[in-house]
């Protein structure tokens, strides 16, 4: 329908429209908001991991200068009774097909009877300044009866363990299982078998902007506006409305500029509900900005799974059976339910054809910070189990790990490939295209070639240097439902205004959706106005989680535009006195096909579409040029990648230096290659952080030992290598533009690729690295233990 002469904007590395304000210091984050008469909140948080609250005395705090209001959890329960659970549940199709048992603990907005992790809030202070609020917080007198803390998920399941939630009588709060074939019989029949335990440690998203909320209640219109550093404005609005007993129409949530999210801001936290409550109650705007110390001990952590894997395989390394029983440590609460844990199950098979498979997951409560999805959301844990196990199988058979992977990979001629499991949307998992072996080849080529590396490695070993190559392959369901909403309007100026439910935190969505809409309407990106992350701009939206926004919002924009184009053409046909079938979009006009000089601008069409006298609409066409569309994806579309890492390991200091790192990935049609690379490299470096540096450490009393950035080591520019990228291209058949999601992917594979690389480097010592992160002390210990074994062997 469109004139083909013009080069599409989709696919161009267009510079970002977001940059100007951010580079001038004109960005506006929640912390930058200042409202008249605004108060400042600070939370009083538990110093103990597990304790009964005997008393909370706020009298001295209330009398502190500048304090406007104080509130304990016990008082709050009287003022704001709990409402029905609004957690996102998995669809009925999934619930009926998947064996599961879930007890989901509800978190009070402020702890009432007991505290369940260090950092759980039990009171809030509101004052004229944050300084005054923090002064008062220091005057809160709270008495606790300490209870034994549970920090290890296995200990939490043992008889006699202290219970995080006594009402359940157990710390086992959920069980899920799925599988196909007959894994037990296949394991028994397999010529070889490998059993191992893998532990993916706990780390977190660590956006540079912590969380924050500012809320304001307008008494005249009885509406509440809340600004939150969130990835899900519509979800926040829904829960605020339910909690405060307000109609959703009288609650507006806006996420202004957000300084990174990566999943940690992808659900509703207690503060998202308490600050609006305080603003309404006090009749003054209230601001709360989380500090970094709070962030590390209150914002959700992620990962933290222990996998017990059994693999059966034949002499050629064909994997015949794969069984995985794993524990997921969800911490004190489980704010988003079983989604991420089921993600682990659904992604364990990765790019491989394995006929017999069974996975059983147990979600266990402990006295730690709650666990929620972070970039990868259950998939890095799956990749660790599967990809480490494959390297061990290869080692046992003496086969090159890359070759063993190739033998088991789904081949391109087998696409679309039905995996035989269900995704968490309840639909069968079908890989919708791709060339996994090609990605493997490209990743290896990008680090200099496998044969070349093996030569370099053996040369280095002769000099006492230890080089290793590690691979990490994964597949990733992206663009998950249930839906995303888009609204498209052509203004009388001819500008195209679009709104969507996606909520960016730096991805460049204003830029890419302008590119997409420019192509849909054959206009310049400058003619497209993009509004996101504001519930006032579109009634329903889902938000930006699960690598979904490019996929789901582009499809919603496409369908909304198709609807609107029909109306646009009907009005243009009336103006041009021709048939709508004779029209096409070209350069901001609706023109007659084959007659370049005859056309009418979109501005003219929009003016003709206005309500009132002297409009230019044909009979039967109502006024206005605006359409909405809520797109419900049929299911996820499958991105994939292969990461290859070459490391040099110093067995004296334990230091792991990344020599080369490459990612070969496929995200279908690329909207903006510059931003795609930025997403992949950014995600990969987060994964490298998780693989080598970042971890949360708790002591036996449940005290967080890594509660500052002096202890929690995020990678700096000097810690990470330049990363080579290679691209494989298979457009998705499941959405109009052929795109696949890519926001999370980069972070999935680095921990296992690095563990495999270090394992390969230290193969002469027989060392295995089955827990992450790979720390210097592990490396040194592995090398020394092996030397001691060799020595004691020689003495004998």
């Amino acid at each position, binding site marked *: 329908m469109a004139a083909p002469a013009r080069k599409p904007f989709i696919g161009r590395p267009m*510079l*970002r429209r*977001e*940059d*100007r304000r*951010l*580079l*001038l*210091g*004109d*960005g*506006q*984050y929640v*912390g*930058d908001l*200042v409202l008249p008469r605004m108060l400042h909140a600070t939370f009083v948080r538990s110093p103990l991991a597990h304790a009964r609250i005997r008393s909370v005395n706020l009298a001295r705090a209330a009398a502190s*200068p500048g304090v406007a209001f104080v509130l304990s959890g016990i008082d709050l329960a009287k003022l704001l009774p709990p409402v029905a659970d609004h957690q996102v549940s998995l669809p009925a199709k999934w619930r009926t097909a998947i064996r599961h048992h879930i007890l989901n603990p509800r978190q009070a907005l402020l702890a009432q009877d007991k505290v369940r992790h260090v950092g759980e809030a039990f009171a809030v202070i509101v004052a004229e300044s944050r*300084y*005054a609020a923090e002064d008062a917080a220091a005057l809160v007198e709270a008495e606790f009866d300490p209870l034994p803390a549970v920090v290890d998920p296995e200990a939490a399941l043992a008889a006699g363990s202290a219970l995080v939630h006594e009402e359940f009588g157990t710390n086992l709060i959920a069980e899920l299982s799925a599988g196909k074939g007959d894994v037990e019989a296949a394991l028994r029949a397999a010529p070889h078998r490998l059993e191992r335990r893998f532990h993916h440690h706990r780390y977190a*998203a*660590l*956006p*540079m*902007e*912590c969380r924050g909320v500012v809320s304001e209640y307008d008494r005249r219109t009885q509406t509440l506006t809340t600004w939150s550093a969130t990835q899900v404005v519509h979800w926040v609005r829904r829960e605020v409305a339910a909690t405060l007993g307000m109609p959703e129409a009288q609650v507006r949530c806006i996420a202004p*500029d*957000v*300084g*990174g999210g*990566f999943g940690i801001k992808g659900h509703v936290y207690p503060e998202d509900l308490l600050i609006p409550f305080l603003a309404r109650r006090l009749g003054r705007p209230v601001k709360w*900005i989380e*500090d*970094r*110390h709070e962030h590390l001990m209150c914002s959700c952590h992620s990962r933290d799974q222990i996998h017990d894997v059994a693999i059966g395989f034949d002499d050629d390394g064909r994997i015949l059976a794969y069984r995985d029983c794993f524990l997921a440590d969800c911490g004190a609460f489980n704010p988003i339910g079983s989604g991420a844990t089921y993600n682990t199950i659904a992604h364990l098979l990765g790019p491989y054809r394995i006929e017999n498979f069974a996975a059983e997951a147990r979600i266990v409560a402990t006295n730690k910070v709650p666990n929620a999805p972070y970039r990868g959301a259950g998939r890095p844990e799956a990749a660790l189990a599967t990809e480490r196990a494959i390297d061990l199988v290869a080692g046992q058979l003496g086969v090159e790990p890359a070759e063993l992977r190739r033998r088991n990979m789904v081949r391109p001629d087998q696409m679309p490939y039905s995996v035989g499991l269900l995704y968490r949307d309840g639909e069968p998992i079908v890989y919708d295209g791709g060339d996994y072996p090609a990605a493997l080849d490209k990743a290896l080529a990008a680090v200099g070639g496998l044969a070349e590396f093996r030569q370099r490695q053996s040369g280095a070993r002769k000099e006492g240097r230890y080089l290793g190559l590690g691979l990490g392959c994964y597949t990733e369901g992206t663009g998950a439902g249930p839906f995303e909403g888009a609204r498209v309007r052509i203004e009388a100026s001819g500008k195209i205004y679009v709104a969507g439910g996606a909520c960016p*935190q*730096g*991805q*460049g969505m204003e830029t890419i959706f302008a590119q997409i809409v420019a192509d849909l309407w054959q206009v310049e990106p400058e003619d497209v106005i993009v509004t996101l992350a504001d519930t006032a701009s579109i009634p329903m939206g889902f938000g930006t989680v699960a690598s979904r926004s490019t996929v789901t919002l582009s499809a919603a924009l496409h369908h909304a535009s198709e609807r609107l184009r029909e109306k646009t053409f009907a009005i243009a046909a009336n103006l041009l006195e021709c048939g709508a079938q004779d029209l096409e979009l070209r350069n901001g006009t609706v023109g007659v096909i084959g007659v370049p000089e005859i056309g009418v601008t979109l501005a003219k069409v929009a003016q003709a579409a206005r309500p009132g006298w002297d409009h230019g609409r044909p009979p039967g066409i109502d006024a206005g040029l605006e359409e909405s569309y809520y797109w419900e994806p049929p299911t996820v579309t499958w991105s994939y990648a292969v990461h290859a890492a070459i490391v040099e390991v110093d067995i004296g200091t334990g230091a792991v230096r990344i020599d080369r790192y490459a990612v070969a990935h496929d995200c279908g049609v690329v909207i903006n290659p*510059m*931003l795609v*690379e*930025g997403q992949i*490299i*950014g*995600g*990969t*470096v*987060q994964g490298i952080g998780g693989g080598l540096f970042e971890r949360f450490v708790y002591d036996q009393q449940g005290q967080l030992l890594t509660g*500052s*950035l*002096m202890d929690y080591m*995020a990678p*700096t*520019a*000097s*810690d*990470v290598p*330049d*990363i080579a990228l290679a691209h494989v291209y298979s457009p998705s058949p499941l959405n109009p533009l052929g795109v696949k999601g890519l926001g999370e992917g*980069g972070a999935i594979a680095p921990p296992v690729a690095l563990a495999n690389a270090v394992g390969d480097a230290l193969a002469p010592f027989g060392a295995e690295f089955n827990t992450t992160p790979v720390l210097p002390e592990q490396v040194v210990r592995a090398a020394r233990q092996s030397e001691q074994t060799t020595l004691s062997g020689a003495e004998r």
Partner: protein
Amino acid sequence: MAEPVAIRLTVNGQRYEGTCEARKLLVDFLREDLGLTGTHVGCEHGVCGACTIMVNGETARSCIMLAVQADGAELGTIEGLADNGAFHPLQQAFHENHGLQCGYCTPGMLMVALELLRLNPSPTETEIREAISAVLCRCTGYRDIVRSIAAAAEAMRQDGKGSR
């Protein structure tokens, strides 16, 4: 609360005189009292570098300085980098090389880069990485920040703006 203390300083060439609490952090003074919210607070313990500004021509972390310690000083922040809305070569290079995503660490990155290029107009990649390791970025994986600074160095050498 203690009596407010008199404070006089220059920010981006503009003079300010007023009072503030002796305990007030410099970054809070800039953001709250002067309305210069372009400088961000990332950790409040001097590690992440988002709050980095120029104090008398050298980078400093404004979250671990008191405002009163800056009495009499000349400060520079991200708001002072452009020239009447025209990007500084560093801002232009960050724009052209995708040197920012969420923008939260960007004020600190720009200040650190500004100092680096003043001291070393032709830094190697390693030197750039070393310098910006003073600021944490969680979005970009650093590659495009490194490229941005290298591109800015090149541009500044060519039009002789290295001393600015």
